[in-house]
């Protein structure tokens, strides 16, 4: 065996051993692509199934979305219609608001003028009330004076009636005396006229009666069943339980005991009734 042959045998043996080791190492460490393929295939199948399921759900959801979209579109249309109506109503309401605002402004002006008018009327009312109060005070004073004058008038009328009665009585006495004188003188004495010693110049007049503070005089203003009202009140000095005497002319009618007293009038119950009192009868505290 030549040297070259030996070298070739050695090199080929070493190379083949090295190559076999490399092949074994590669084959032993290489991946199992079939198993990986099966795994990827099963994963792909599951993903396809999931994709199918998701596609089906997507289709269902899409159908639901379309249905919901249709409903929402209908509702949007309804809302749009309602919005249009509400817009019209809003415009009308704004127009009415402006109209009412104008009315309010006009009424505010009217109210302002009314307030001024009312203020003027209140001022004139106050002045009128003040004048009325003054007139009322004057009326009370005049009524009091009228009552006093009326009372003095009735008193004078009573005195005149008494004097008239005296005059009639004296005239009758005079006629009796003249008739007795004519009978005593006989036929010669007829036609004798007795002249009074004191010439009659005028009818005797009673002296004026001075009204004192305690002597109250008035008239009956109302007559009830058991109560009568008189024209005198607490302003004239009338007090409760005062006694008034009622006269009609010179005739005593009854007596009044005061039970209620007001400012300008009084009322009382009747006592010692001789006749029914009437409105206008004279009342006084003195006999």
């Amino acid at each position: 065996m030549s040297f070259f042959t030996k070298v070739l045998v050695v090199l080929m043996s070493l190379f083949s051993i090295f190559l076999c080791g490399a092949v074994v190492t590669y084959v032993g460490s290489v991946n199992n692509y079939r198993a990986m393929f099966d795994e990827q295939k099963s994963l792909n199948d599951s993903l396809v199934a999931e994709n199918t399921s998701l596609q089906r759900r997507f289709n269902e959801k899409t159908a639901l979305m379309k249905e919901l979209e249709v409903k929402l579109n209908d509702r949007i249309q309804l809302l749009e219609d309602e919005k249009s109506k509400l817009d019209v109503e809003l415009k009308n309401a704004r127009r009415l608001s402006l109209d009412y605002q104008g009315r309010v402004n006009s009424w505010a002006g009217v109210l302002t003028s009314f307030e001024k008018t009312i203020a003027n009327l209140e001022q004139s009312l106050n002045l009128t009330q003040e004048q009325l109060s003054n007139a009322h005070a004057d009326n009370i004073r005049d009524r009091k004076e009228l009552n006093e004058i009326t009372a003095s008038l009735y008193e004078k009328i009573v005195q005149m009636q008494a004097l008239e009665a005296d005059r009639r009585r004296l005239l009758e006495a005079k006629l009796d005396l003249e008739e007795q004188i004519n009978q005593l003188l006989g036929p010669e004495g007829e036609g004798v006229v007795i002249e009074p010693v004191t010439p009659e110049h005028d009818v005797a007049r009673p002296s004026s009666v001075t009204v004192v503070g305690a002597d109250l005089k008035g008239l009956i203003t109302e007559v009830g069943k058991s109560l009568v009202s008189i024209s005198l009140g607490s302003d004239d000095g009338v007090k409760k339980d005062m006694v008034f005497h009622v006269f009609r002319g010179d005739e005593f009618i009854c007596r009044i005991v005061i039970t209620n007293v007001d400012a300008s009038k009084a009322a009382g119950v009747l006592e010692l009734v001789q006749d029914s009192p009437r409105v206008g009868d004279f009342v006084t505290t003195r006999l």
Partner: protein
Amino acid sequence: MRPNPRRIAVNDLYTALLALATFAVAATAIFVAVKCLSDYGTIFKVVESAR
């Protein structure tokens, strides 16, 4: 003419080396064949796609 004498190995070292190399190649081939059979079910057929 003298008959061909039987060839006798010159050196057993080289014979053993060749035998070792041959055994390594055969063992490698067997290993590869077993590996292909166990992983892919065939030795020479190329595995195709399922699609």
